[in-house]
């Protein structure tokens, strides 16, 4: 299989869906003529033109609300948030109109919208631009939240997200855009809600999503070579729906779980999974479920400190060693 970047895989997925379905359009700030702030949509405007790739003013609440309204009439907008942090100025549209209209209409209306963009810290831009709202958004019944970690996953999942008739919030990571991975040339999709065991192991289960998966894989490698500890790494891929079977199956095998996420800890995704594991696999656990999240403060600007504030392989290794 050819090696391509996460960015390229994502772009290919977008392009394929634009070609497949005339109702698919991309909208966001700088997505067209500027080729995307992070070049995810590079070349798409030249290829598909003004109708399918649309530059929007700096009005996230306005253009995302517009996308939700258009989707009610059957358009399938793929909205780019330049940073997912900017979702906060569009929050009401995203959690009330997108999440509740189907319900409040007794199922008469669908909102087949995708809102995508990077949702991560670690890029040395400070607190306002480093938010990770996946836990907050997944709190809302009516929404789906997907966080792909690899080129293969991001392509297969963006295609499923665009074809999904429910609102799907698709969270990427600027630090993964340049990462390479194998992606088949032939078309494929990945079902939303299926986790993926990225590394098999026997001593402990590391559960993560997004870039934290890559962090865990690095840590697992070092733990194997330097400490002879065998880690299983479960990549959630989707936060809501959540693949509980995959989580439980792994923990029942390893009897230990460390939950790693770039979220802030309080009511983060790890909290929900920790509850799940102790609830459904209580007797299978050799010890408490542990969590590793971003250090609990707004994202610090200073580069070396921010690198430490986020979970990194070293912090994962220390956490695992404490558990075994």
């Amino acid at each position, binding site marked *: 299989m050819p090696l391509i970047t996460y960015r390229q895989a994502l772009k290919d997925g977008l392009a394929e869906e634009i070609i497949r379905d005339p109702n698919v359009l991309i909208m966001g700030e700088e997505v067209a003529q500027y080729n995307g702030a992070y070049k995810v949509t590079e070349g798409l405007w030249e290829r598909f033109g003004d109708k399918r790739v649309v530059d929007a003013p700096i009005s996230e609440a306005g253009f995302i609300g517009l996308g939700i309204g258009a989707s009610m009439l059957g*358009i399938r907008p793929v909205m780019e948030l330049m940073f997912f942090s900017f979702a906060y100025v569009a929050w009401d549209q995203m959690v009330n109109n997108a999440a509740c209209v189907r319900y409040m209409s007794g199922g008469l209306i669908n909102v087949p919208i995708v809102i995508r963009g990077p949702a991560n810290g670690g890029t040395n831009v400070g607190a306002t631009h480093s938010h990770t709202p996946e836990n907050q958004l997944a709190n809302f019944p009516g929404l789906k939240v997907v966080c792909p970690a690899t080129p293969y996953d991001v392509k297969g999942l963006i295609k499923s997200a665009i074809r999904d008739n429910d609102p799907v919030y698709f969270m990427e990571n600027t630090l993964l855009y340049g990462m390479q991975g194998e992606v088949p040339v032939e078309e494929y999709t990945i079902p939303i809600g299926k986790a993926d065991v990225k590394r098999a192991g026997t001593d402990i289960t590391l559960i993560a999503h997004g870039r934290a998966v890559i962090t865990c894989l690095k840590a697992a490698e070092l733990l194997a070579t330097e400490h002879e500890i065998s880690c299983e790494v479960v990549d959630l891929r989707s936060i809501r729906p959540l693949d509980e079977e995959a989580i439980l199956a792994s923990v029942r095998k390893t009897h230990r779980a460390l939950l790693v996420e770039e979220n802030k800890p309080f009511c983060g995704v790890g909290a929900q999974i920790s509850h799940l594991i102790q609830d459904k696999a209580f007797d299978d656990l050799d010890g408490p479920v542990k969590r590793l999240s971003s250090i609990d403060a707004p994202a610090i600007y200073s580069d070396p400190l921010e690198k430490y504030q986020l979970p990194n392989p070293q912090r994962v290794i220390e956490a695992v060693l404490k558990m075994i």
Partner: protein
Amino acid sequence: MSNNTTTEVNQEEEIAPPLDAKALASGRDHPVNVSLKAEGKIRLYTTMVRIRRFEERAVRAYQQGKIGGFLHDYIGQESIAVGCCSLMKEHDHVITAYRDHGHAIAVGMNQNALMAELYGKVTGCSKGKGGSMHYFAPDKNYWGGHGIVAGQTPLGTGLAYALKYKGLKGCCMCFMGDGAVNQGVFHESLNLAQLWKLPVIYVIENNGYSMGTSLARSSAFSDSLAMRAEGYNMAWDTGNGHLIYEVRAKVAAAIERAHEHSLPTLLELKTYRYRGHSIADANAEKYRTKDEIRRTRETKDPISIFKTILLEEKVLTEDIAKDIEKSARDEANNAADYADRSPYPPVEDITNDVYWSVDNPGKHDNHGKIFFND
């Protein structure tokens, strides 16, 4: 920093003096009204009466404890929804705020389903899930019924965007209150609509108050709220919402601008609500004088005014008017009986209609757990 007295004054000016016969017929000469046949005029009148009776019946049901939560009635404003919606063509759409009963009836929704929704019954238009503020009828091009002030304005802009995207000759009439003009998302919508030349008509139903706050205490403006469109180089107009002929004339021009030129309009229509913000509003007569309410009812009621006009036009007779009254009352009472007799939704319903993929099993390639009750 807020000043009540000046407000009162503004309001007084708003109301008196009562309109003379000529003023009452304003808009009659506009083609859309000239071309109206007798049946058409009767239908306008009938629909206004049906809305009023429906809501009066709903208010009674609320007072009897059959309806709870919020009930925002539209009594006094009927001419706007009826006038605007009476001009809808195949690809014209409507969206509004939580004061949505009038628009729902104006687009042709069934009163049984509307009343049952208020009662929270499974036979309601939203299966009892939306309630008074959240009516929907996509089959009638009616997209709600939205509880968050101005939250519907970008949605309406998006409906217009979809029409243009699909190359359909239509527009979206996006209704809102005078208090909604101070929500930022409305301004973002105005800019997008003009920038992208979208066929949307923002109709401000200016009834002078947002809850207990008079226009002068909530909004900074010179002559009108509609003038805010000027900053976006957008067409705008104001009109007397009490006069259904004028409402139709004004909105017809906006519809033509949308249909023929794919351009938006901001249209402000002056109107008034007699009752409180919602039926639960105990202050209805505190933030404005009893007298202000009385005189508006007497001099500006859209139904009485139109009745006077139709009698004078010899389109309507007192007998026909009585029949219209009676069948409107019957329709509303039957709707209440229907709602009363209807069952509540079963408990399982709570988790239906959340996700399309759950309600249509096997059609989506979705896995995993999506509800987290256990």
